[in-house]
């Protein structure tokens, strides 16, 4: 006997019939936290206003400056790549507000786990931007000491760093410290098992970590619908912690929401997922050609929501910011560009023996043997004159 026959049978659909396709994510408008409209008007938000209630015009100009300089640095890197000084560059163009807003929400003792695109966050942490260029130039695989600015190395394998952040946060909790950890990742990364596991671990251990997803709507050529059929911030709920979607082009909203999430972490309330809804205005990297997979109008429509322009409008209309500020910033920008250019061009190639350095902390017999063989081999090329 099978019981299977007891329920009414739907007629079989003939082979070839299409199933309904996955639903498009609903428009984010209603659920999106926004404090500054694209036109630069301040809008009220009962929940998040308190987190930026006492922000001064000076501080707002600081955020503006961060975004402008980050964009300038980013443009310089793109152009250095074109000139052959870098092998590759992953531009953050369009994501300045998400990065500066969240980056400026952090305390010095918080710890950051970035992807490969968090140049703006690095800036907030005080990492010398030229340090970020080493790996893109090909002289190292990560050129800074993570502990000097509490800014971990760039991680290229998608999603991995969310688990490192979770473990680090578990350690923070063990230490009884009240600092927090923030893990950056992208919309594409949300599909990786590691990210899901980091949600599970952080929830179970109540780790003080903020998951900051920059949904820039593209994972190389794939739009977000290839990764999810509902808005990503909703993912958190099923793991037992809150998720919130913030306008990623609104630096004030990003600042406020990240502060809120960090304070939850500090208070021992565990993880939070922040989805910053933004847009990758440029190519995925300098190797990419977006014209193959997306229309220019999409990008154009996002230019109207530019994160820098909107804060500039606000500063100009609602604060005492004068033209001098913008002029000086322009000059500072150019100086930064110049410095970056000079430092990169002067960046020496690594010593050949660097191959064998730091493979192990405590040494390894085979590395020693291969280093010696390499030295002997190199020495065999000594020119005749030198040889005698």
């Amino acid at each position, binding site marked *: 006997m099978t019981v299977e026959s007891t329920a009414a049978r739907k007629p079989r659909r003939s082979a070839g019939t299409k199933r309904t396709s996955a639903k498009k994510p609903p428009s984010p408008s209603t659920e999106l936290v926004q404090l500054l409209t694209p036109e630069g008007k301040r809008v009220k938000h009962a929940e998040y206003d308190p987190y930026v209630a006492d922000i001064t015009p000076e501080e707002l100009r600081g955020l503006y400056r961060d975004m402008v300089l980050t964009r300038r640095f980013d443009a310089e890197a793109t152009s250095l790549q074109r000139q052959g000084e870098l*092998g*590759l560059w992953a531009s953050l163009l369009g994501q300045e507000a998400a990065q500066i807003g969240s980056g400026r929400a952090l305390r010095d003792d918080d710890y950051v786990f970035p992807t490969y695109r968090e140049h703006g966050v690095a800036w907030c942490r005080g990492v010398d931007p030229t340090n970020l260029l*080493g*790996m*893109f*130039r*090909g*002289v*190292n*695989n990560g050129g800074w000491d993570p502990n000097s600015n509490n800014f971990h190395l760039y991680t*290229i*394998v*998608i999603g991995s760093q969310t688990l490192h952040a979770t473990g680090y946060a578990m350690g923070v909790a063990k230490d009884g410290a009240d600092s927090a950890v923030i893990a950056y990742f992208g919309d*594409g*990364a949300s*599909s*990786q*098992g*590691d990210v899901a596991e980091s949600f599970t671990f952080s929830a179970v251990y109540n780790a003080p970590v903020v998951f900051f997803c920059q949904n820039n709507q593209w*994972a*190389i*050529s*794939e739009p977000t619908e*290839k*990764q999810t059929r509902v808005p990503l911030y909703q993912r958190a709920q099923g793991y037992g912690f809150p998720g919130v979607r913030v306008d990623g082009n609104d630096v004030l909203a990003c600042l406020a929401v990240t502060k809120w999430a960090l304070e939850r972490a500090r208070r021992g309330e565990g993880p939070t997922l922040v989805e910053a809804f933004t847009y990758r205005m440029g190519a995925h990297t300098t*190797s*990419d050609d977006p014209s*193959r*997979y997306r229309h220019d109008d999409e990008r154009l429509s996002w230019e109207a929501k530019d994160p820098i322009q909107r804060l500039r409008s606000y500063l100009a209309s609602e604060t005492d910011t004068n033209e001098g500020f913008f002029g000086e910033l322009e000059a500072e920008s150019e100086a930064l560009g110049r410095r970056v250019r000079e430092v990169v061009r002067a960046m020496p*190639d*690594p010593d*050949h023996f*660097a*191959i*064998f350095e730091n*493979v192990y902390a405590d040494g*390894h017999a*085979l*590395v020693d043997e*291969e280093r010696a063989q*390499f030295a002997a*081999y190199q020495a*065999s*090329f000594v020119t005749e004159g030198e040889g005698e």
Partner: protein
Amino acid sequence: MAAEKMALAKAINESLRTALDADPKVLIMGEDVGKLGGVFRVTDGLQKDFGEDRVIDTPLAESGIVGTAIGLALRGYRPVVEIQFDGFVFPAYDQIVTQLAKMHARALGKIKLPVVIRIPYGGGIGAVEHHSESPEALFAHVAGLKVVSPSNASDAYWMMQQAVHSDDPVIFFEPKRRYWDKAEVDPEAIPGPLHKARVVREGSDLTLAAYGPMVKVCQEVANAAQEEGKSLEVLDLRSVSPIDFDTVQASVQKTGRLVVVHEAPVFFGSGAEIAARITERCFYHLEAPVLRVGGYHAPYPPARLEDEYLPGLDRVLDAVDRSLAY
């Protein structure tokens, strides 16, 4: 398609097109394989011509890609999966090793797993970390997988045809720095068996064995050595699991000397297996120990050091000289 000179990447593209055309069960899956045509354009135009149902942009999750490909294979499909770069295959390693490789045996042969996993591999393109590795040994050690790597466009075309037709999982390593190298591809030709090595060049003093990107280097070495009056035989192994030891053995029994060259680290690399087995098979023929030239026991270095890290003309010649000095 008539016989034509084309780049290696294009040859794989044509081969996939032929496979899609010939068998409605063949699918292409991977990150960015659709409109973009993959980061190396190997799947260029295929989605346009065969539709999103057959050329599938997947979520960004390699375990998911391989795991669902296994499920599709169980349903009768023949998925050809792309891993975007060598260094990104590891999230899928569990599905490959514990499921894809073992399921046919687990089922006592009752189910088959015709899945091809394409992996652009190796260095020499000045890339950032994880984009230049050669992990073939990590797959060859695992029973149930076949591991191959073409060195030129013609082989790429034919080996892909054979991989797609194989009822076993095939890890198909594509030498990314040779993607743009051109050779004549004749789709009417009748290919040899997939796992048979090819004598690229005959010689009498020493055998050079390589596969994938290093075959070209070995050919250059043989040219350079010839100018010094040394006659080197060059073998293109084409397959890393199984390895065509018979062809290597025959060559070594003639030359008495063998140097194996690969980009992967020497320690526990293909060269170790070849050296061990050929020494056993040719113990009385070898006039020198089998020497290995490959990567060092270190993470793949930043791009500005890769020329020092990778086996190149000079390093292989050095090994040739050391072998001949015995």
